[in-house]
């Protein structure tokens, strides 16, 4: 019996050790001064980037660019809703960089001291647009058409960033949308449109670009009233601050600009 106990404990200890080893890997000898230089090979180790779900395609591409430019660095990506990511970082998740889909969630981290107050840089904007199923069965031509209860419109709930933007737009235009559903994420809104359940859904321009042929977009000229700004910042206390800074620089630089624009994001 004692032998079995020992074996269990030993296995547990091994697990713990290997876990610690993984965390302790980044060495401290990377020079912070090399941060903004794209060609410096002095960067090594790994960084973990927490990014809003809407950045999945663009940041996956940018991470590859970054790793190509800095062969010594591995970039781990984690995508989720901005508020989920904020919760995770607050609870101690090991993030080196945080890219939020709105300023409110970034503010939560600066308020908590987890991101330096001056650190966040706006790197992209996104505006709402109307996504309709192919063929536009509800014949939606303009934002005002969504006020018609016959047009089954799905929007984001006011609690999430895209919903807040929707509410701002409704106030600015005086159009009230009798939504059939208020989803908790853009993905869910888009899902209802691609499946044809909804005649229209309010999503971001980038979502329509990413969805390809699954949906059609109907531009909203009034959308400029509710521009969503994406800030990015290194997380305070990062184990690899130099690489984190370099990644932020890549995203806010010209490489980032090109990739983001191609995906439909606007310039800040």
């Amino acid at each position, binding site marked *: 019996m004692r032998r079995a106990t020992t074996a*269990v404990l030993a296995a547990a200890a091994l697990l713990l050790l290997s876990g610690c080893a993984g965390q302790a890997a980044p060495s401290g000898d990377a020079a912070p001064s090399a941060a903004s230089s794209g060609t410096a090979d002095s960067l090594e180790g790994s960084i973990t980037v927490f990014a809003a779900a809407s950045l999945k395609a663009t940041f996956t591409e940018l991470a590859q660019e970054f790793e190509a430019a800095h062969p010594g660095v591995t970039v781990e990506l984690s995508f989720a809703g901005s508020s989920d990511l904020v919760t995770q970082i607050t609870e101690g998740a090991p993030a080196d960089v945080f890219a939020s889909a709105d300023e409110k969630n970034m503010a939560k981290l600066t308020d908590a001291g987890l991101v330096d107050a001056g650190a966040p840089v706006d790197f992209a904007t996104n505006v709402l647009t109307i996504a309709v199923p192919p063929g536009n069965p509800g014949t939606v031509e303009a934002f005002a058409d969504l006020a018609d209860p016959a047009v089954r419109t799905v929007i984001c709930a006011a609690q999430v960033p895209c919903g807040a933007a929707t509410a701002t737009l409704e106030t600015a235009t005086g159009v009230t949308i009798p939504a*059939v*559903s208020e989803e908790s994420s853009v993905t869910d809104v888009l899902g209802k449109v691609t*499946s044809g359940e909804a005649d229209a859904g309010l999503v971001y321009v980038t979502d329509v670009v990413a969805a390809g042929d699954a949906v059609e977009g109907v531009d909203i000229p009034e959308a400029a009233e509710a521009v969503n700004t994406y800030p990015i910042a290194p997380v305070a206390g990062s184990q690899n601050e130099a690489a984190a800074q370099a990644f932020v620089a890549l995203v806010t630089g010209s490489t980032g600009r090109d990739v983001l624009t191609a995906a439909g994001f606007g310039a800040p």
Partner: protein
Amino acid sequence: MAGSTYGGVPRWVAVVAALGAAFVLLPLVAMLLRVNWAEFVPLITSESSLDALGLSLRTSLTSTALCVLLGVPMAIVLARTRFWGQKVLRSLVLLPLVLPPVVGGIALLYTFGRRGLLGQGFEAFGVTIAFSTTAVVLAQTFVALPFLVLSLEGALRTVGTRYEAVGATLGARPTTVLRRVTLPLVLPALVSGAVLSFARALGEFGATLTFAGSLQGVTRTLPLEIYLQRETDPDAAVALSLVLVVVAVVVVAVAHRAGEPAGLRPGRRAR
């Protein structure tokens, strides 16, 4: 000697078991510690919370009724008849138990959705299921039905057909036997199965989110409300979670008590 029976559980088994129990219980304790007790009552009695709670109770009760209505005949057919392909059918019917709910939601969408297998027909008659409370009930019934079928089928097999045979030879028609013999015999399992179905329906999230949408008072059940509140008001989310935990504890207790067979097989008592 009375009362002292040989246990024979190695100490390390007890230690690991205690770890396992702590693993299950600790998160609940952690959640309790986060509850904002000062604001607890206002948080769970806000308009949106009450709407969600009311909707959840209404839809879950309806789903449970549907589960009983559909599940009892299903369990009887599975337990009492033999036909070609039965084993396969049985596994398929119980699939929602192991299926991720979101997959269930997608499947329901392609069935009852606007462009779905049946939904197209419904749409032609002006019946729209998506984004309605009906959709919530369908999603809940879909995921909860196997619980009822499974517990009832097991009970039917355990009880066996001997009492039913006696009933028949006393002149009772099959329907009378079902009503007066079979169902009373498996009543405890039926109750516990229904309670479990209710609990599963109450906790249903994925399929509802995918298939029914989320609108206050119409399709936004308690789990969806918690998920949404978490975005902006973690205190409200925790408070509502606690409400669900309490309901779950009550449900488990009721199911456990109802599941104990009361006075079956008296013929074996004294020989």
